[in-house]
C-alpha cells in the first residue's frame, strides 16, 4: 500500500450553527498519527468529520482551511479530496461480492487489481474470500473487509467515525490493533471520533476533547 508523507492540516477550523459555535480546532496530524477527538453527543464530532470529508450540511457555517498533500481541499467535492472514511458499520455493498466491494474502491489506474485484492485478503486472514457474498460473512470479517477496501482505495488521509462501537469486546480490541497498525504502516494521517477512552488509549496519538 502506498505511503504518503503528507500531514493533514486543519487550519483554524470553526464550525457554527446560527450563532452557536460547535467546533473550533487548529491542528496538524502527522503521517501515521491518529488524532482522537472525544466529546459528548451533540458536541459536533460528526459535524467535524462531515466538514473534512466534504458532506457538511449547508445549514452549518464553516470557516478555516483543510490542507492535504500540500493542497487546499476545503472547497473540493468529496470524491476529489482523497479522504477515506470508516463508518460505524462495515457497509459492504450488498449487491457486490467481497472482491467487487474491494474493486469498487480501487482507483482506475491500478493495474494488477486481482493480485492486489488476493494479497490484501491474505494479509487479513481472509484468503479466498473474494467471491463470497458479503452478507454471509461474520461481523469481524465484514469489518476487516471494510478496512482493506478503505486502504486499497489509496486515500491520503483517513477519518474514523466510531468504527469499533458496534463490535463486541473481544473483537473490538483485535480490530483496533489491526486498524491502527495498518494506518500507521501506510503512513496515513488519521482522525478518530469516539466515545470510548480505550479507543483513544490504543490509538496512541494526541487527544482533543470537545465540550
Amino acid at each position, binding site marked *: 500500500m502506498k505511503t504518503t508523507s503528507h500531514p493533514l492540516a486543519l487550519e483554524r477550523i470553526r464550525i457554527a450553527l446560527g450563532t452557536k459555535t460547535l467546533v473550533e480546532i487548529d491542528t496538524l496530524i502527522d503521517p501515521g498519527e491518529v488524532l482522537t477527538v472525544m466529546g459528548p453527543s451533540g458536541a459536533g464530532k460528526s459535524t467535524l468529520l462531515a466538514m473534512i470529508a466534504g458532506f457538511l450540511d449547508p445549514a452549518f457555517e464553516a470557516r478555516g482551511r483543510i490542507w492535504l498533500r500540500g493542497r487546499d481541499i476545503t472547497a473540493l467535492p468529496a470524491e476529489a479530496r482523497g479522504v477515506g472514511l470508516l463508518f460505524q458499520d462495515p457497509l459492504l455493498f450488498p*449487491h457486490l461480492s467481497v472482491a467487487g466491494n474491494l474493486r*469498487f474502491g480501487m482507483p482506475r489506474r491500478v493495474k494488477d487489481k486481482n493480485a492486489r485484492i488476493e494479497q490484501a485478503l491474505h494479509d487479513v486472514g481472509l484468503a479466498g474470500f473474494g467471491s463470497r457474498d458479503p452478507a454471509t460473512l461474520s461481523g469481524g470479517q465484514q469489518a476487516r473487509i471494510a478496512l482493506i477496501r478503505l486502504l486499497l482505495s489509496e486515500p491520503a488521509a483517513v477519518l474514523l467515525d466510531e468504527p469499533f462501537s458496534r463490535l463486541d469486546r473481544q473483537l473490538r480490541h483485535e480490530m483496533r490493533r489491526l486498524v491502527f497498525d495498518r494506518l500507521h504502516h501506510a503512513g496515513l494521517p488519521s482522525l478518530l471520533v469516539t466515545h470510548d477512552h480505550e479507543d483513544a488509549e490504543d490509538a496512541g496519538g494526541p487527544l482533543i476533547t470537545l465540550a
Partner: protein
Amino acid sequence: MLLRLTPVVVLVLLVVPILAGVAMALLPAFGYLPALGGESFSLAPWRELLAQPGLARSVGISLASGLITTALSLAVVLLFLAVAADTRLDRWLRRLVSPLLALPHAAAAFGLAFLIAPSGLLARLFSPGLTGWEQPPDWLILQDPWGLSLMLGLVIKELPFLLLMSLAALPQLDAPRRVALARSLGYHPTTAWLKGVAPALYPLIRLPVYAVIAFASSVVDVAMILGPTLPPTLAVSVLEWFHDPDLAKRFLAAAGAVLQLGVTLAALLIWWGLECLTRRLGRRWVENGRRRGGERWLRLTGRGFLIITTLTAGLGLIGLALYSVAGFWRFPDALPTTLTPRHWQTALPALGGPVATTLVIATSATLLAMLLTLAALEHEQRRGRRTATLALLYLPLIVPQIAFLFGLMVLLESLDIRARLPLVILTHLLFVLPYVFLSMAESYRHFDPRWTRLALTLGHSPNAAFWRVRLPMLLAPILTAAAVGMAVSIGQYLPTLLLGGGRIATVTTEAVSLASGGNRRIIGVWALVQAILPLLGFILAMGLPRLLWSHRRGMQGAP
C-alpha cells in the same frame, strides 16, 4: 445541469395541459369556439344543459358516488387497521390487497357485474336451492338507478388504494408504541388505535382521500359498465354529448365538463366540511376517557368488509375466466355444462393489435415517468432538500379527467395537432407519473445516505454513485414502481379514447366498448386479458430482483 431542470419539467408537463384543458373547456362552455361558429360569449350552452332531462339526478349520483364511495372505503380501512393484529388472517388479507391495486377498474367492474347480475355467479350459486329461482329474476341489480352497483364497483378498487396508502404512511407514526401507551392507561387495543393513531394518520392520507373523491365523482369507464343509464352519471353524459355527430353539441359538452368540475369541487368542499365537523366532534370523543366499547362489532365490520371486498374481486375474476371458456350454461347451474376454447380462438386474432398498442403506450409512458421521477428524486437528494412544489403531482388525480381532457381535445383540434399515439402517451404520463413518483419516493428518500457518502469517499463521482450504488440497490422498489406505472397506463380509458380520436384501440378501450353489447363470453376474454397484463408486470417486478440477486442474501429483503 439537466437534473436541476427536472422539477420544472415535471411541473410544466403536469400543470400546463391541465390548466390549458380547463381553460379550453371554459371558453366553449360560454359559447366561444370560433371553429364551430361560436364567435361571442353567451349563456346558451348553460340553458341547454339545464334543460337536459334528468340532469339533477345525474349530478346527484355523481356527487353521492364520490362521497359515499370514499366514506365507505375510508371507514373500512380505518376499522380494519384498528382491529388488525399480527395474525395470519390479517397478514394474508394485507398481502391479497396489493394485487387488487393492479387490477384495472374496468376489469374489476366487469367481474362485479358478472357476479351480481340477476343471471350472475351469485344468483347461480344460491339457485334454485335458497332462492327457488328457475329463471333469472327480473331485477335491475346492475346499472341500478341509484348507482349502488357503481359505488360497490368503485369501493372494490378504492379500498385497496386507501389501505396501501395508509400502510405506507403508518411507519412514520410509530403506531405500536402509541397503542402500547394507551393500553397502559387502560384502553382496549382497538379503541387505543382509533383514539391514538387514526387522528394522526388521517392528515397523512388526506391527499389520496381527495384523489378518491375526485375519481369516484367523475369516473367514466366504471360508470359505463355499472352506472345507471337513464340518465347516466354526469361524466358519461358529457362524453356522449362530446361524441354526438351534431357538432353543435360540443358547446353543451363543454358546459357539462365545467359542471363536472364544479360537482367534483363541491364533493371536495362537502368532504372538507365533514372533516372539520368530525375534527370538532372527534376531539371530544377522543378526550372523553371511554376506554372500550363496541370492539366486537368493530372487529366484525372491519375484517368482514375487507374479506367481502377481496372475495368479491376474486370471485369476479373467476367469473370472467369461467365465462370466457363457457360453452352451454343453463341458468341455475353453478358451472357451465361444457367448456370451449372457441371464444378465445375467435378473439385471438383481434387481441394482438390492441395488446401490442397497450404495451407500447404503457411502456413509453412508464419509461418517461421513471426517468423524470428518478431525476427529480436524485436532484432532491443532491440538493439535500425536498422540492415542495412536487405536491402539485396530485393535480392530475384531483382535477376530473373529463373536465380537462375535453378542453385539451378542443385545443389540439384547433391547433390541428393530430399526432395521436404521442398525445395518448403524453396524457397517460399525466396519470402514470404521480403514481410512479408516489410509489418510489419513500424508498428513495429513506435510502441510507451513508451508501452514497461511502461511494464518494472511495473516489466515485455523484453520477457513478447513482448508477453503481443507488440504482442497483434500489432495483426492487424501482421495478415495483414501474409495474405500478404500467398498471395505471393499461387501465386508462378516457385519455386513450379522447386523445386517440377513437382510432387507438387498447385492451381497455376494446373491453369497455363491449360493455353495451352484453356478450359475456367475449367480454370475459377481453376483461381477463386486461386484468392479466398488469399482473404480469408485477410478477416480473417481484421475480426479477430475486433472480438477479439470488447470490446476494443482503439484497433479498427490501432495502
